[in-house]
């Protein structure tokens, strides 16, 4: 990210780091652990989007389709539900079904 160029009194231009870059530096950048975590989150979301297709699915159905552990599927489906990407549809036996809303 480019530093901002600011003009001081006297016409001298100096480069000033943006606060976000200062914080990034102070934190030592994005840690490898967080990079892995974020990459895995995106991978799981992609798998779930494909597994949902156009229909409503239960957590075990999504787990079977994605080969993910059911508790992992549940956590991510609930996260997507909280932020409006998934909605609960109806009860099917011992489970509820969920579907994607199309919201990004």
């Amino acid at each position, binding site marked *: 990210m480019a530093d901002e160029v600011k003009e001081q009194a006297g016409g001298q231009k100096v480069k000033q780091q943006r606060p976000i870059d200062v914080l990034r530096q102070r934190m030592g950048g*994005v840690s490898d652990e*967080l990079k892995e975590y974020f990459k895995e989150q995106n991978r799981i979301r992609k798998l779930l989007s494909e597994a949902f297709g156009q229909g409503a699915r*239960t*957590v075990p159905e999504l787990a079977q389709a994605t080969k993910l552990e059911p*508790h992992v599927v549940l956590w991510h489906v*609930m996260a997507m539900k909280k*932020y409006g990407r998934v909605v609960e549809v109806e009860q099917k036996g011992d*489970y509820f079904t969920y579907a994607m809303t199309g919201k990004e």
Partner: protein
Amino acid sequence: MQPLKSYYDGVVIGGGITGMQAALDLGEQGYEVLLVEREPSIGGKMIALNKVFPTLDCSSCICTPRMAESAHHSNIRILTYSEVRRVEKRGKGFSINLECKPRYVVEEDCIGCSRCEQVCPVDAPHEFDEKLGARRAVYIPHGNAIPQVAVLDANYCTFCGKCEKICPTNCIDFAQLPTQEKVEAGTVIVATGLKTTPIDAKPEYGGGKFLNVMDPMAMERVQSSNGPYGRVLRPSDGKVPKSIAYVQCAGSRDETLGVPYCSRVCCMYAIKQAILLKHLVQDLDITIYYMDIRAFGKNFEQFYRRAIEEEGVKFVKAKVAKIIEQPNKDLLLRVEDMEHGGVRREVRHDIVVLSLGTLPAWHAAGVIDIAEASDGFFECVAQKISPTRSTMDGVFIAGVATGPKDIPDSIVEAGAAAMEAAMYLERSGVRRPVAEVAAY
């Protein structure tokens, strides 16, 4: 952050129900109070509860007015996301060092719109929902949070800058640093609340290992309509449970855990949760495995009787020896049924809630030189006649900081501590003149 005053009549450590009540009781008498809370919102444990026993009143409905009153009281200043680092006696008063953690949000400018949270790309485990649900790297702590202000967890931040771009009031401030503050105070009240015993303390119960062995705070969140699932589901796979077990004394009355005492609230919260679960899930079977049921308070015995006679909760006097996880994540309990000659049985359940014990949430070592009793809670110098007096003159203790107790007892003790603090301020002569007194 708005500057702190150099002096407060009282500093209350802990922004849960006890701390808020103590602050309000002092504030209403005209004393100026600083209420310090380490989490990004006041409310403590109570704001995370679904309902309270034995009335089954909505916990938020009781707690949020106290939160709002504390936040808007002209004599109370709330300092959240901050910790007390050192309290030193100076004559009759105190010098207090505080550390304020950076929210990376300008509190005064944030309108709590949560647009930053909506655009943040990183989902993180939500501590408020006992990590069963998600939040974003930048997030409003919860729907009832006070202040209703975002906080950024830099450990989950990828520095994409989306929150900064979307914020309508430009209040994201990545340049914030932790700050050290110092105030003088006439008196201190310690109201630091509780935590539960570790869920994995007894390996034979599989807590922390088996997904469907839950701690009671997690079950409170699952039961809550604003909880992680929006309804009662099993954590391993989202199944609607048909059978739930409670294991009593799973963290108390146990010398091996260093918790020889009874935690006082576990029987009642188990009964409360059991009754509520019966209302929330059709045809749900609930069994409470107990050593003895302690229902000592006002209407507690009636509440226990209601659970048996009206709600159909089963009570089995049995010691649970072991919990075994099945391949489908069902749980098999090996119990010794004491009502039937100690016969051993194996019983299957979908979820097991361990009624964990109560520990003090905070220890003062290195911060305030007040003594703890052998059970780890703060020591009262005159337990029978003045239970809120600590071992340091001018420092008062209240709520679960002094020992396990329920919400009404905590509130009563908060009032007692506030009264003792007020008397100390008046008798010691330590109080400094204040410019205004809040109208009653």
